[in-house]
């Protein structure tokens, strides 16, 4: 527009009414967009404030370390249970997910690879309650309500997270790297493991952390499978508490102290989920959240 002053032309660069209206629409719409972005963050702030105010008063080291039957009550059994069951689930699901992701990218044909993508979508879309129902029908009659049953349910939910992330990051590894390695005579499988996977390692680890995050946050499948127990000994053959289940059960108690403890457990879980999420953010470069 400044050109209008320098070069005398026949084109009139000054603002027409149409332009002004376009500018105004632009400003309004940009404002709307900005509001939406803020709106997306508001619930987080609201939830955080409430959890903090209701959960912090009862939070203490003894709350984290004590047994539910001790005085004062604690949630060590729930924390252990969540970590153990998620831990077992990730030990089972990580290899399966990584192996599957590698296959779909490195060894499968184009068609199989596409089908595989679709399959992972389907598996990711399985509602967690159905994983719980499946284990309730198939595994609980054999192993009883137990930590094993809970772990199996979590495994079913965590495999697709690892598989999807692995598949995506491996796909991003430049073909040139693979070709260079193969040209040097490195066997295909060694190329995959030591070159491709090593390059994608950060992303694969992200997938594992995302899966852990999912496992720690699940309630419904554990309600049906591992239920709960006051026991502080870690025994996978018997019912195990988990933080999410404890929150759900305590939230509906008649004892206001127990309801308060539900909020405190929620705070602990929230902080844990937050930390894991931060971990994911800072390792990733270009990964999609599943």
């Amino acid at each position, binding site marked *: 527009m400044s050109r209008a002053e320098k070069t005398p032309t026949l084109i009139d660069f000054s603002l027409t009414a149409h332009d002004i209206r376009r500018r105004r629409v632009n400003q309004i719409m940009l404002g709307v967009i900005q509001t939406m972005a803020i709106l997306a963050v508001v619930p987080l702030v609201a939830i955080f404030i409430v959890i903090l105010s209701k959960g912090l008063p009862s939070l203490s080291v003894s709350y984290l370390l004590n047994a539910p039957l*001790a005085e004062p009550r604690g949630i060590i059994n729930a924390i252990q249970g969540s970590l153990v069951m998620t831990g077992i689930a990730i030990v089972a699901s990580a290899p399966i997910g990584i192996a599957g992701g590698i296959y779909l990218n490195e060894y499968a044909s184009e068609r199989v690879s596409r089908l595989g993508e679709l399959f992972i979508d389907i598996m990711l879309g399985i509602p967690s309650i159905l994983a719980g129902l499946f284990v309730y029908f198939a595994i609980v009659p054999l192993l009883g309500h137990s930590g094993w049953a809970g772990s199996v349910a979590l495994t079913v939910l965590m495999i697709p997270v690892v598989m999807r992330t692995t598949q995506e990051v491996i796909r991003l590894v430049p073909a040139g790297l693979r070709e260079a390695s193969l040209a040097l005579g490195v066997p295909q499988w060694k190329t995959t493991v030591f070159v491709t996977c090593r390059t994608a390692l950060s992303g694969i680890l992200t997938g594992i952390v995302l899966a852990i995050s999912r496992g720690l946050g699940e309630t419904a499948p554990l309600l049906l499978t591992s239920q709960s127990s006051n*026991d*502080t000994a870690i025994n996978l053959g018997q019912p195990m508490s988990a933080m999410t289940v404890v929150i759900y059960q305590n939230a509906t108690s*008649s004892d206001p102290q127990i309801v308060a403890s539900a909020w405190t457990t929620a705070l602990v879980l929230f902080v844990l989920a937050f930390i894991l999420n931060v971990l994911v953010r800072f390792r990733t470069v270009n990964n999609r959240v599943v």
Partner: protein
Amino acid sequence: MKTALRLVVGALALAVLSTGMASVSDASATTPVITTGSKGIVQGGGASFPNDQYQKWITDISAGNFGFGSDSTSKLVLTYTKSSSGTGKSNFKGGTARSASQMFSGTDSLVSASDTTATNTALGGRDKWTQIPMTAGPIAVITNLPGNPQVKLDGATLCKIYTGQIKKWSDPLITNQQTSSIKKSLAALTQDIVVVARDATSGTTFIFVSFLATAAGVTNNCGYTSDWTNSVTNLSSLSGTLLPADAIMGTRFAAMRTANGAAAIAGKTGNDGVRDYVNATSYSLGYVEMAYSFASNVRQAAIKNAAGGAYLLPTQSGANAAIAAQNTKATADGATAAVIAANNPVNPSADYVQPVNQLGATAYPIVGYSWVLLYTNFESSVTNAPTKGQVEGLIYFLNWSLAKGGVYTSGTTKCYSPLPTSVKTLVIAELKKVKFDGVTVWR
């Protein structure tokens, strides 16, 4: 010298005698014995009505030095998971029966005839399980009205409220029972009563319904008769015999309420759900176990006693009086079999009626027992079976809790009642029937 010898002999004799007596009293074993070093989980679940009481017992016994604690590798760990009487009954005969995670169930409703048959089939006979009362408590009727007044109600009025014959708070049948100031404020209200009940089969409902059915001035057991169908719209059309049920009140009275022009009953989940809804909804009315009746906008109603006509609030002493009155009937000299069957809470027969509307000046009218369903034949061959020590622990815990009685307090208010002595004796007799691999646990 002789005196000294006599003294020594006397002391020795005394010592021998006292140890002898001590071993005699050990042999008669007034408390069960837990094998030293017993460990593992002792778990059960079910009704939410007695949950607070069971949790208190569990916490207390675990804090003492009885062999219970938090770590199942060295102690016995007790867990009671509340859900509902229905779930408790279902799990009792389900696939995990008699495993360490399903050693007993809580229920405050009777096991129906078909459920009894199913349980017998699943467990191998009626002698393989027993239904013992563990605690009892009052049910409070709670209201949410402006100014939180204490409303007076009787059974007939509550029946009419739940069946939809009374729709508004200003109905004379309600206001005529009130004190003058409350009468005026209620009469001025134009709002309908928001009626709240449970949304699933519930032992609490069972107790409340037993009260409605047997209250004075109620037509045809308030519909809880053997010839009821869900399409009945008029109580006078019934002619069957008394049959309380734990089924959903909303479904049951839907047709009747529609015929009376009343809105549907709001069904809520659990005692806590009813309490929270009443607390949040003005002009509402519901029923909950007494432990759940404390909230900011909620007030207990005073219920008319069956004997003197006084209006009573739910209290532990009121529940004690009700239980005692029923117990007297069952243990009276010359009580007929029918009377005993209707009043004996141990392995209750189909004719048993909860201790509601008892005749006693201080007997609170809405009181009910809560039972534990217990297996009498634990076996080590079952999947995830408990060890003998765990079964011993369960029997010890149940016996200990019986002795402790109603120790749970909401604040300083006691909400559950201990059992009368004669009932306790019967329960202990049942506990002594429990066997592990064919051997009686409590000898």
